[in-house]
């Protein structure tokens, strides 16, 4: 699989990972973990609005919202919460946030389920840990697929 099937931002991230050696890929994942945005206050105070992804080794909560600026296409906003002592999980969330936030539902649903494997981290991170990221992407896609249809 190549990156041509991916949305532009995600394809760029995948290219960045693939251009690096294995140790540098881990460092890049760490950078993504640091860049994961804080939750907005309205979600911080309402943990019940977030869903836990139990397949992740460390607690990860996520939710999605939709926006539709006047006349524009509907876009999906992503929100993640993971503790600082879980940098790998935060890194996965950071990649998905930067790669998918603001896309249309159709664009997100078109992302291949095995996209995490393209990052070239499986050997360094191990397949077991990579499963957490695949589960995260799967959860996002299921939530997007369950959105009410707009005309």
């Amino acid at each position, binding site marked *: 699989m190549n990156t041509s099937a991916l949305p532009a931002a995600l394809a760029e991230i995948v290219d960045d990972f693939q251009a690096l050696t294995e140790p540098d890929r*881990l*460092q890049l994942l760490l950078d993504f973990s640091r860049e994961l945005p804080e939750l907005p206050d309205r979600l911080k105070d309402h943990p019940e609005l977030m869903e836990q992804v*139990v397949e992740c*080794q460390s607690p990860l909560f996520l939710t999605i919202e939709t926006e539709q600026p006047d006349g524009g296409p509907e876009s999906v906003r992503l929100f993640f919460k993971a503790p600082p002592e879980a940098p*790998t999980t935060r890194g996965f969330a950071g990649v998905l946030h930067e790669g998918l936030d603001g896309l249309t539902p159709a664009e997100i649903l078109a992302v291949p389920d095995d996209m995490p494997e393209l990052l070239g981290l499986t050997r360094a991170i191990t397949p077991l840990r990579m499963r957490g990221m695949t589960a995260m992407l799967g959860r996002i896609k299921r939530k997007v697929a369950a959105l009410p249809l707009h005309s």
Partner: protein
Amino acid sequence: MPYPVEQNAKFAAYAHPERLVSTEWLAAAIEAGDLDGGKLVVLESDEDVLLYETGHIPGAVKIDWHTELNDETTRDFVDGGAFAAMAAAKGISRDSTVVIYGDKSNWWAAYALWVFTLFGHEDVRLLDGGRDKWIAEGRATTTDKTAPAPAEYPVVKRNDAPIRAFKEDVLAHFGRPLIDVRSAEEYTGQRTHMPAYPEEGALRGGHIPTAASVPWARAAAEDGTYRSRPELEALYLGEAGLKEGDDVVAYCRIGERSSHTWFALKYLLGFDTVRNYDGSWTEWGNAVRAPIARGIERGTVPSAP
């Protein structure tokens, strides 16, 4: 033991006080420059493969249980050659004192220590309380990557028998005590994996018949340190019913949480023969005709199939 053993009242009550160091002891050793020269090497072993990079004890070297201690192909640990190469690259010699610490009350640190013991590394110790205690006390951390000067480590053949049990050993062990260190839900068979952890593919739920349930975390205090000797005795001799001199097998899901219990039984309470069954539930819960008990009762010794 080439490096001085810490003396304090809590450790002195344990059977092998030389297997633990406190955060104060380690901070003083680092302050004194003892990490220079490879006589004392500090390793961080975490569940999260990036946690070390977010900040670690100054001078500590990262070890990853998954990529550096497990064989990549076979479900087994690395062999003597790979272990020697790994240790040498981390600046560890055969006579180095190795202090290991990690996240989650030292689960993965105890696991790494157990693997070092499979290779007969003589002086390997745990930092009591691990990473969380060090950070909670506001002690120094750094993101500077430690670049250890490579050492020489001999190729040693792994000696599994004294501290590692295989499935066949467990089947032959019936009639002697087993400790199941998983959560209550895993023990009863309500679930086959840790709460909030990935399903790791055990087909059947429950426990090995006759195993006593003592979840690993009960051996740890709130600050992640091991409980005192009297508290551990109340737990394992009292509640679980172990007797002095017992031959014990501990297991969990893949052998990591039971390494923590193995350490407590072997070094803190002084049981001579304690083995960790690292195949644990991911093997037993899938093995054809392996006997299983469900519910809170320990169950009885199964008759031969």
